[in-house]
């Protein structure tokens, strides 16, 4: 092998080896554990084949968490994209380039905050007795308002925090994307009787289709990792109304029953579901 052709391997092999150890080992370990009845209470375990997986389908709490996960994905991704596009277009239309830069700087702050901090801050803001968000309701009605204790509103409140963190950041990206577009089609559409909102609806947003889809996919993957946010704000409660798949796996494995094998099967199921879903979406949008 000459120097020319060995060089790529010099760079690639250590990285791939490291990645294999760090990422692949736990994955494979979880996979193998998902076929056992291992628990935290005893060192002994048996291989039980697909029993964990079969049990999942009769576990109503698991099915609920799958539904919550899907809801969570849909709400946070669409919410973030709507906020980001709306705010991005608004900044592009109404703010001077100078003001735009200042807004961008401010809008970057939420995403810079560690998510656990954001979760604590907003949890307190939604506090039924002391929170600033609930203050107007208290002031008017004199009664406390506990949105996080209500099964219907809890998921919305947590999703709101997630959208707050990412929507503003994406708005910054979108305003920069809009600025990067060639100005002539926009000018041509102004001459073609298009009103400002029509210019964006028919011209700029379709022109940004590819980057917007990429952004939505990035957010979808990011939303899958919202464990810390949900853990701090609701721990899956009230009841199981905000319990996503990863929350449920965590509580099965470490909090409630210590059933590590069962928890692993949930995690593996989630992995497969994610890979399949994203492959289908990716293929569809790239057509």
């Amino acid at each position, binding site marked *: 092998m000459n120097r020319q052709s060995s060089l790529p391997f010099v760079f690639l092999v250590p990285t791939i080896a490291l990645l294999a150890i760090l990422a692949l080992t736990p994955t494979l370990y979880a996979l193998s554990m998902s076929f056992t009845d291992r628990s935290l209470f005893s060192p002994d375990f048996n291989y039980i084949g697909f029993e964990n997986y079969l049990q999942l389908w009769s576990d109503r709490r698991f099915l609920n968490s799958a539904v919550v996960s899907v809801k969570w994905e849909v709400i946070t991704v669409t919410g973030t994209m709507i906020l980001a596009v709306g705010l991005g277009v608004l900044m592009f239309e109404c703010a001077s380039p100078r003001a735009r830069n200042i807004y961008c700087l401010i809008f970057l702050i939420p995403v810079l905050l560690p998510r656990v901090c954001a979760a604590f801050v907003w949890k307190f803001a939604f506090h039924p007795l002391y929170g600033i968000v609930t203050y107007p309701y208290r002031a008017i009605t004199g009664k406390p308002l506990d949105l996080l204790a209500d099964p219907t509103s809890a998921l919305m409140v947590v999703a709101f925090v997630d959208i707050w963190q990412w929507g503003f950041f994406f708005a910054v990206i979108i305003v920069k994307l809009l600025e990067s577009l060639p100005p*002539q*089609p926009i*000018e041509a*559409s*102004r*001459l*073609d*009787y298009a009103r400002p909102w029509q210019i964006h609806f028919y011209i700029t947003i*379709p022109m940004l289709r590819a980057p917007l889809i990429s952004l939505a996919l990035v957010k979808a993957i990011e939303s899958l990792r919202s464990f810390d946010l949900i853990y701090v704000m609701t721990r899956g409660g009230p009841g199981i109304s905000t319990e996503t798949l990863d929350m449920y796996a965590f509580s099965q494995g470490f909090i409630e029953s210590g059933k590590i094998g069962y928890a692993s099967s949930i995690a593996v199921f989630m992995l497969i579901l994610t890979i399949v879903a994203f492959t289908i979406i990716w293929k569809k949008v790239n057509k």
Partner: protein
Amino acid sequence: MAEIICRNIRKTYGAIEVVPDFNLHVRDHEFVVFLGPSGCGKSTMLRMMAGLENITSGELMIGDKVVNDLEPRDRGIAMVFQNYALYPHMTIRDNIAFGLRRLKVSEAEITARTAEVTSVLGLEPYLDRKPTELSGGQQQRVAIARAMIKTPDVFLFDEPLSNLDAKLRATMREEIARLHKKLKTTTVYVTHDQMEAMTLADRIVLMKAGRIEQIGSPEEIYERPVSRFVAGFIGTPAMNFIDATVMSEHGQCCVVNNEIMLALDGTSFNVEPGQQVVLGVRPSDLVQDATVTPPLSGQCDLIEYHGDHALVSFKVGTSSLHALVAARKRPFEGEQVNFAIREGAAHLFDQKTGKSLLRESQSVAAA
């Protein structure tokens, strides 16, 4: 159909004044070309007419309306851009129909009108393609179709042919000329290409540094340039300029420098003895002359062969001159050449102001 009136239009970007004071009356059905070097404010002026740039002060009228504060869409104009500015994600059909759809014209009428303009411009085979699948010339034709379908009062063209190759440019130029003949829509056309200006324009507005240098028909501008700048800008190959002084000998008016002495018809020029002038002669107005003492003689140092013609470069003293001669009669490099100025073809400009010294009566008579 409409006329355009610009009154004292001024445009500044911060402290920089791009257009100081622009006055122009474009008549109904007229084809006016803004011509000038880059940065002369011609595109800015056009964009102000389109409403894409704000007018700092002054008044712009299209038809009978003052349009200063109207949105581009309310001005009754259509514009063709240099880089086509098509909507990249739409098919050609949707590109052309976009404006009419915004106006909520019925689909049946849109189909009929699209068919009409596409047949004029030969675009039928491409209607379902995307802009990137078309060549530059076809894309520009789509842009023209998109402008035409709106049946505007005024067409604005912003260097529409600059991105095309030379051959296509000539074809498209002809096509635009034909279209204007047919539609007779008032048109303002910006270009830096004098060939386009000369062939398309009813009147040329020659601009320099935001000001109008001269307005006139192509012929007027070519034959009677009002300044040295206009004379140098219009005409290929460019006009020859020779610095000289006016003298009066035996009542005969002459221009003289170290190398030449040329008698002039004193009645056609506003000159005084001792005045510093620039003599301008177009290369095509230099004729080969075998007489013993022709005014311009020198050694030929370069021949550019153009096919029908050849451009002969020769040095008279310090100044390098060009003459356009029939290719068959071209001299050899290194040969001594003698040229005379065709009668009445000389131009004189004041050295300080650059203004033409041709007598007014003369230019009026010619116009």
